[in-house]
């Protein structure tokens, strides 16, 4: 325990020193926030996948609940062993197989649907509480996080957002200019997020129908049918539908294999299931989507964030009425100081237009990931501000 606390203390010290150093040493005012954001994004990866740093290592599946260092640090002892899936925060942090510290709410929502009414064995995890209770916890955590920081999670903390930003930097190395989708397409992409999340949640409910309604809506969803593929194939192999298509999963597993936290043979050798599956942990769909998103993100900034269903959920709980009225992290536009120069619109990585179009006051748009790039590049003093709980934490400065 002492060692783990020491590791965390050293880590916190490094982060604090890093933040102070960036703020003091970066002379270019239009880059300071970007550098700070990159540093925080990288630091967040270590926090989110803390389990990878403090062990257990080389474990293909799950750590002993309540006994691993991460459990002692995050909730095992603090809140009782009711978080076998980790803490739910709105970041794409894959559960599989070692990232149980902080995990994606979409995974947790799907995992809570079965078993729904009773405490029981989930997908190789024993839950002491019912799925309904865990679902309430996940949504409570999601609403809490969204009200507190909103899509700041996407812009500053999400590991997949970091991957997107790194791809943008790769493109810049080759001195290629990014592409923009048309405003209509941008809006349609934004709307498609809600369709994606709705479809996958509906699929989860259909797949978990036996545990919710006591009857299987489609064949293959009966968990009591043992290991018979016909009657329990779906519930056994595609129980978490979104995870089978999520591009974060192969990325997480690839990184884990690279840092020797996971044995590559577990990915390459295990091949079974109704889909063409490249391994138990990575599906062909995962891989295809990751490749597609990677290619698209080299051309279009933060492409995944424009269609991310998790971003849609976070956006829903922070930028729609009534949530937007009480959200604590917001952009604020000072109408008198804005000259409509359009810099904010051009630099926005998700092509959100609300900052430019809003006449003044709070800027709330579900596409905005609160990366504060617009605040950083706005050349007019206090024309844009990033506020938390009514207090300005960042404001535009005259850097001309």
């Amino acid at each position, binding site marked *: 325990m002492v060692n783990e606390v020491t590791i965390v203390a050293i880590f916190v010290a490094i982060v604090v020193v890093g933040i102070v150093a960036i703020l003091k040493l970066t002379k270019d005012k239009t880059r300071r926030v970007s550098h700070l954001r990159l540093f925080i994004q990288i630091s967040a990866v270590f926090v989110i996948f803390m389990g990878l740093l403090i062990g257990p290592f080389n474990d293909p599946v799950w750590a002993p609940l309540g006994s691993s260092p991460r459990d002692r640090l995050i909730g095992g002892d603090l*809140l009782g062993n009711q978080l076998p899936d980790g803490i739910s925060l709105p970041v794409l942090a894959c559960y599989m197989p070692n990232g149980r510290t902080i995990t994606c709410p979409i995974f947790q929502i799907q995992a809570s649907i079965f078993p729904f009414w009773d405490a029981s064995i989930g997908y190789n995890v024993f839950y002491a509480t019912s799925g309904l*209770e865990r679902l309430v*916890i996940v949504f409570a955590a999601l609403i809490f996080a969204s009200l507190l920081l909103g899509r700041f999670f996407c812009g500053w903390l999400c590991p997949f957002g970091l991957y997107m930003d790194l791809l943008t930097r790769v493109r810049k190395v080759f001195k290629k200019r990014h592409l923009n989708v048309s405003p209509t397409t941008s809006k349609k992409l934004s709307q498609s997020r809600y369709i994606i999340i709705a479809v996958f949640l509906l699929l989860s409910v259909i797949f978990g129908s036996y545990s919710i309604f006591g009857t299987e809506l489609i064949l293959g969803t009966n968990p009591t049918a043992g290991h*018979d593929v016909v009657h329990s194939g779906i519930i056994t192999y595609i129980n978490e539908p979104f995870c089978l298509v999520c591009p974060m999963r192969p990325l997480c597993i690839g990184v884990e294999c690279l840092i020797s936290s996971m044995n590559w043979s577990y990915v390459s050798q295990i091949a079974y299931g109704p889909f063409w599956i490249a391994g138990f942990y990575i599906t062909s769909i995962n891989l295809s989507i990751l490749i597609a998103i990677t290619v698209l993100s080299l051309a279009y900034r933060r492409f995944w964030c424009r269609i991310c269903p998790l971003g849609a959920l976070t956006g829903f709980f922070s930028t729609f009425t009534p949530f937007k009225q*009480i959200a604590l992290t917001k952009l604020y536009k000072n109408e008198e100081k804005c000259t409509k120069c359009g810099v904010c619109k051009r630099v926005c990585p998700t092509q959100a237009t609300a900052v430019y179009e809003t006449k003044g006051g709070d800027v709330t748009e579900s596409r905005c990931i609160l990366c504060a790039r617009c605040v950083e590049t706005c050349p007019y003093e206090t024309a844009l501000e990033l506020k938390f709980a009514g207090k300005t934490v960042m404001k535009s400065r005259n850097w001309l």
Partner: protein
Amino acid sequence: MESSLPLYVALKRRLGKGYDNTITKKGLIITATFVVSLCILWVDGGAQAQRVVSFTPDSPFSIPDCNATIHFAFNGSYSQAKLEDNTWVFSNLQVNSTRTWFFGDWRPINPSMVETFRVSAKSCNVTIISLFVSQGQDEQIVGNYNAFSQRMGSITYNVSGPGVQSVNFDLSPSFGQNPRIRDVFVMLDRDLTGRSDANQQSDGWSISSDGTLTVTGATTEANIMCRDYSSLLIDESLPFHENHSVLVVSLVLVAGTVVFGVIIRNNSLKERRTH
């Protein structure tokens, strides 16, 4: 030479007459009593040790009424083995099995002790190849895979002749009663080199309310693995807030944030009106 004198004489010289008297009277009685007690304990201990019975692969455990015999394929011992209702009940069964079957894989194990193990057969001969029972998490065998299981039992046996076999690992009283707190994985007459599908319940095996697994569909080999999660269930005697602490904390956080957000919003609106 003083060193050549008997010990009590030397002690008498140092400690005086009283010590000599003790040696000769009370001391002798106490010493004799002590020695006799030691002898009794030793004999009793020997008797205890004698009650541990060793067995070898050649030792048969017959069930004459059922026309069946059970063998172990390894050496071991037990403190008690009795035939009750045509079922062999072993107590403190020391198993010198070197491997066990775990979800289709063979895992090496060290010799282990099984507190109570019941096994029965009817119209067949059974040879137990491996046996493992853990009353807690045992990382030597399962690594972290068994993370959420507190108790597990695993057995592999060969069968000759069509018949019925039953085993009971004595995991927990609720193991047989509540299907939600158990995980039973049975493979009968399968090739264990690949990950074949397990047999469903009633497809050659069943479980009774006392946790006894009865196998009817094995003709050559049976592999059984059970996991018991009953000890992880919530203690219903605890108050609600202790059993559902995460739920309570989550809802309090949301409520607190909403209240805080409303206050901040009202303050901002007031401020803007003032300006």
